[in-house]
């Protein structure tokens, strides 16, 4: 019963926020709706016992990414409301809604046709181990009663250590890219480049 209420409230917040992102003509309001959705998803993470990911979701998404969006909106002064009543391409919205409904229909069809076992879920109770030794959890198995951060850390720093290290390279590249993109060049080296910002004087 508790999970039903949590799912209902968090799901409604998620969907309302998502619709707010799409339907709000003011980008700042859209960003704030996005925060609502991200919080709702964090609550759903907790409801599914992914506590660490819920914390990371709030810190990284709501705390960093949306704040970055708002910084860009405010600093550039592009927070003017968009006129949503005009449709630049005729028939595009209808086509977009049809495509969206198609995107929605495919997973729904998959979920319904498999009767809720859309992943071929392991049967409950039989999942104690793969190699047959009872009481010994299989590698990567999510064990009941062990903190999820313990298991996540073990997985991240053993099996996925190389991928984890590679993400640090990715982050460095992203930082360098952001610095290069937002630098201002001197007039002498100005070329007709849409990404290069002209400076006065």
């Amino acid at each position: 019963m508790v999970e039903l209420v949590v799912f209902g409230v968090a799901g409604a917040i998620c969907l309302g926020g998502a619709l707010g992102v799409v339907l709000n003509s003011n980008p700042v309001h859209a960003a704030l709706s996005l925060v609502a959705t991200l919080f709702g998803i964090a609550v759903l993470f907790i409801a599914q016992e992914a506590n660490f990911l819920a914390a990371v979701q709030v810190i990284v998404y709501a705390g960093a990414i949306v704040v970055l969006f708002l910084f860009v909106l405010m600093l550039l002064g592009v927070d003017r409301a968009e006129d949503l009543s005009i449709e630049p391409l005729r028939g595009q919205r209808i086509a977009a809604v049809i495509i969206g409904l198609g995107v929605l229909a495919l997973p729904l069809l998959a979920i319904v046709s498999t009767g809720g076992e859309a992943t071929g879920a392991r049967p409950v109770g039989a999942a104690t181990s793969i190699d047959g030794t009872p009481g010994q959890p299989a590698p990567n198995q999510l064990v009941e009663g062990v903190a999820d951060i313990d298991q996540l850390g073990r997985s991240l720093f053993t099996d996925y250590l190389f991928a984890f290290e590679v993400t640090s390279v990715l982050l460095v590249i992203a930082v360098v890219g952001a610095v290069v993109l937002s630098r201002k060049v001197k007039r002498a080296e100005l070329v007709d480049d849409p990404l290069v910002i002209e400076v006065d004087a």
Partner: protein
Amino acid sequence: MIALAEVTPAWYLVLGSMLFSIGCVGLLVRRNPLVMFMCVELMLNAVTLTFVTFSRMLEDVRGQTVVVFVLVVAAAEVVVGLGIIVALLRKQPDATADDLTALKG
């Protein structure tokens, strides 16, 4: 109502696909590049929700590991994407997605 009182993992999958399709429609309909970016974040979050649900359904921690990587990649993507948008909007403050044709061959 009694039959509905139990939340099965399929409900989370349905919610995830609804969020994904809303983000997809937003990406196709909106013309402000920043709002389009927010819709991409929406779709990414729908996918992470699905991954966590699968992680619980299959009792496998690797679903949550993937979510950590998705978070890192999303953060990197936002940094670079917003850098590009800042550079473009500084030059052309009213740019919509229709005006950004600099990469046209």
